[in-house]
């Protein structure tokens, strides 16, 4: 029979005992009590329980719980909610700074790494060419030196000595250095993957050069499509003024200009040898081209046809420009990226946890 008494009935009984029922509910319950003995029994048991609990004595405080100033000041730890709030705010600010800083520094190197003419690459290319040429046998007439930059150009059938002359200086050859050149009809056999990447790079540089107004007279040195008629020649040459070996002196010759005409080129600022700007008609030097690889020195006494001439050089970079752009080493950047990411995650976790703790503490303290 007890199963017929629901929890709602017990609520009515409990409220009835506390005189907390409405008139309607009271009348309803009293009607049921008269008709249901089980319900009356439950009413009696709940009433006795209520009386027993109410009979518990009201205890007196064993002492006085006065609050003194020291007791209040001695409990600063109760105010934890503001601390967590401050920690969360600080962590959020630091996180924003780290994100902004990492984004800013990531974007800057890209801007700084504007296309420039790396001269150091040329130096390395020249060295490689020298090594390769030294290792490979080459005939004096059909030498195919290592192509450091650019593809072989189609040489004009007739050598144009005049084009090589640098205007008033009839002896342009002494200062002309040809790094390399190709026979008009031959393709360097050693033009392999050794410097294919460099070739492509040089081509791009060449295009930049043509697009640059600083070298309006440059002709095609690196097999790049240039508007100059002499660009059809398959040979490329670049006169570099250098009193030393090719490798270090490239950068010092801002006047290493290539002119398709015989117009004199502006002399470099600090080059001891007179400048000579040979034309980009490589056909003039087929004989001398052969030996360009091993001989990298620029001899003042050599003429254009000298075997010591070395043709073909990399990018005529303006002075002070084109320093080797060292890309960021990937391992270092990976480590930095991971470090920054770790810091960001840590700050985010601190901010979230401290914020939640502050909210919870405030709710609990009311």
């Amino acid at each position: 029979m007890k199963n017929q008494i629901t929890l709602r009935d017990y609520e009515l009984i409990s409220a009835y005992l506390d005189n907390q029922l409405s008139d309607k509910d009271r009348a309803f319950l009293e009607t049921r009590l008269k008709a249901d003995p089980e319900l009356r029994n439950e009413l009696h048991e709940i009433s006795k329980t209520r009386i027993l609990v109410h009979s518990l004595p009201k205890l007196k405080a064993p002492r006085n719980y006065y609050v003194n100033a020291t007791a209040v000041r001695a409990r600063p730890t109760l105010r934890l909610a503001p601390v967590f709030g401050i920690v969360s705010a600080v962590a959020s600010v630091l996180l924003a700074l780290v994100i902004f800083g990492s984004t800013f520094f990531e974007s800057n190197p890209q801007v700084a790494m504007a296309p420039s003419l790396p001269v150091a690459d040329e130096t390395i290319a020249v060295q490689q060419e020298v090594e390769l040429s030294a290792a490979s046998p080459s005939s004096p007439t059909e030498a195919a030196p290592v192509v450091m930059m650019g593809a072989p150009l189609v040489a004009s059938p007739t050598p144009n000595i005049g084009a090589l002359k640098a205007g008033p200086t009839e002896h342009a050859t002494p200062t002309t250095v040809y790094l390399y050149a190709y026979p008009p009809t031959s393709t360097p056999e050693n033009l392999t993957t050794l410097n294919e990447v460099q070739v492509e790079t040089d081509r791009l540089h060449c295009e930049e050069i043509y697009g640059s107004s600083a070298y309006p007279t440059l002709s095609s040195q690196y097999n790049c499509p240039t508007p100059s008629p002499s660009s059809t020649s398959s040979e490329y040459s670049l006169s570099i003024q250098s009193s030393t070996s090719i490798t270090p002196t490239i950068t010092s010759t801002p006047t290493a200009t290539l002119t398709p005409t015989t117009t004199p080129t502006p002399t470099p600022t600090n080059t001891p040898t007179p400048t000579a700007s040979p034309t980009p008609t490589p056909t003039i030097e087929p004989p001398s081209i052969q030996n360009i690889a091993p001989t990298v020195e620029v001899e003042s006494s050599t003429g254009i046809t000298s075997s010591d001439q070395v043709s073909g050089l990399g990018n005529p970079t303006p002075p002070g420009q084109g320093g080797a752009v060292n890309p960021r080493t990937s391992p270092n950047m990976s480590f930095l990226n991971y470090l920054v990411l770790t810091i960001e995650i840590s700050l985010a976790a601190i901010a979230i946890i401290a914020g939640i703790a502050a909210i919870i503490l405030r709710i609990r303290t009311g």
Partner: protein
Amino acid sequence: MIQAARDGDLDSFNRLVLAYQDLVYNHAFRMVGEEESADDATQNTFISAYNHLGSFRGGSFKAWLLRIVTNTCYDELRRRKRRPTVPLEPLDDAGEEVESAHWMVDPADQPEQQVEQAELQRAIQHCLDNLPGDFRTTVIMVDVQGMDYFEASQAIGKPIGTIKSRLARARLRLRDCLNGFAELLPAGFRLELG
């Protein structure tokens, strides 16, 4: 006096302490069931009340104070639940184990009625300790402290309908607990329930 205490007058607040400390201690004792824990909870309640007087928005100060002591007791119960420290044998003031607990005292040395009353109170307290926290709070406020449903609703922070439901369930559980416990109690207790 409350306003003066909110303005920082410590003396005014201590007068409030004097007026409500019995109520707070009684509530704390019935909640935690131990004198020492009730003492700590009462002291913490008044310190917390002083520190948070600014959050008192008016209304029943008694209900506001009982809410603080209830939350303090909840913290103590949770702490005790995480780290139970019930001794196997009771200890005296010197920390020595008592060979015979107070409930094992020879009843012949005390009036029978007092013994029965003490055992009955312990039985009721035992059943209160077995109630869930929210049920326990409700029945203590209404049946022990004598508060009406409205005051209890303010102190607990729940609607009156919730108070009615919790109280009914708490009394039902107490009834069942006391009926089962009655067989172990002295005859006087059983006669009362019989």
